[in-house]
């Protein structure tokens, strides 16, 4: 049911773990539904210098988190805000339709983290 890319990112997730003293944190989802995603950002000059994630969820939830960290790394905040859940799914060679909404939350988590950063640095 999952593409090879999804399985690769799920089995060997990139940039996984907690970040110490991050500049921003974004958390979305709800453990009741089975998906909770947390994104940590290190930001310098409006550029994402480092990004890490923690996810409670299914294979798709972990793979989409991992893929998003690769897509967002090195981007400016404005560029990162343009990343969508479709970008993540496309980069993973697609997701099963049932997983598109519940488990593809990483764009929302990244957005929440950037909003957190901007709120702190207004």
């Amino acid at each position, binding site marked *: 049911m999952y593409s090879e890319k999804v399985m690769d990112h799920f089995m060997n997730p990139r940039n996984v773990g907690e970040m110490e003293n991050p500049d921003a944190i974004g*958390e979305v989802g709800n*453990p009741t539904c*089975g998906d909770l*995603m*947390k994104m940590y950002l290190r930001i310098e000059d409006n550029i994402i210098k480092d990004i890490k994630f923690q*996810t*409670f969820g*299914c294979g798709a*939830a972990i793979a989409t988190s991992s893929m998003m960290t690769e897509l967002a790394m090195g981007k400016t905040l404005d560029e990162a805000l343009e990343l969508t859940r479709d970008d993540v799914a496309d980069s993973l060679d697609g997701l099963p339709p049932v997983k598109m909404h519940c*488990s593809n939350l990483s764009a929302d988590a990244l957005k929440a983290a950037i909003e957190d950063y901007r709120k702190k640095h207004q």
Partner: protein
Amino acid sequence: MTAERIYMDHSGTTPIDPAVLEAMMPYLTKNYANPSSLYTEAREVRTAMDGARQQVADALNAQPGNIIFTSGGTESDNLGIMGSAFNQKEKNGHIITTSTEHPAVTRTIEFLGSHGFDTTFLPVNEFGQVELDVLADAIRHDTRLISICYGNNEIGTIQDMKEIIRMAHERDVLVHTDAVQAIAKIPIDVKDLGIDLLSLSGHKIYGPKGIGALYVRDGLKIKPIQHGGGHENKLRSGTENVPGVIGLGKAMEMGKAGLTTEIPRVKAMRDRLLKGLLESQEETYLNGHPEKRLPHNAHVRFSYIEGEALLLNLDMMGIAAATGSACSSKSLKASHVLLAIGLTPEQAHGSLRLTLGKNNTDEEIDRVLEAVPTIVKKLRAMSPLGHGGK
């Protein structure tokens, strides 16, 4: 990665036993006659079917006349429940079941509920058992039928069927049980139990898929739900699945014999597996009853992780297992059984079901006991919940 794959989903289905396949082969090849015909070839097939019916009856301590062959557990549940509901002299009435049944029972009783019957779905306790006083309170003057699963398909909890039946019969209520998971796992004697209707299936007991049976006690009248040429004592029309019937007969005979040979070995492996899993790391819990559980069923939950991720990792390590997580289901809802025993959805998500069978070995238990904690640690390290990684 080159190691043999390990199959631990025997409550999902089982492989056909070679001896069962051997018994079936002639009826998949040269003995193809329709048993309803009159010529010699057909009479031979009819005689073989009679023998299989005897084998099924013997395994349950029933008579061949009590056995109706069906297409499997789902049809047996439908026929037993609807067939007895529609046979009542009084129109409609009240049906009792539990909140932890297989969908074949739940959906059938919901269907009757939308066609004039009153229905009650009883709660269960934290182990998944129906409390007898709760059942006693639910029985009404117009209660016609109680349907309760003998051994739960998810968490393996065994109900106190003998007491349930005694209580029901005191109040003139029929009892149906879905024994699909319990058959060939625990001894079942229909005479001793006094059960009215019992469903069983072939593919859970090393028989073929597409065959099952309904036991109907002597003197109990039910109505058919599939109409046609009047096969199976006018209760289940349609040309018989002869190879399936022969396979079911052999599987039931072997299953009965295995209760004293295979099952103690399977139970010992299951006990070691459960103990090892529960001791492997913190915040790991048993789902279901510690003793009153099917001997092949191990069902545990790990905090802070999600079952589909666990299953996919196990699959990559060569192990086939099941979960109760929402994320692996078509409905995206957590298992109704796990919610009914009082788990929160996030607790239910972290569940793992391993169901053993006669081909499993001690070496396989060792491999699973090595793989599961490794994966749980890996997933906990990724999880934002709790103290991940410990």
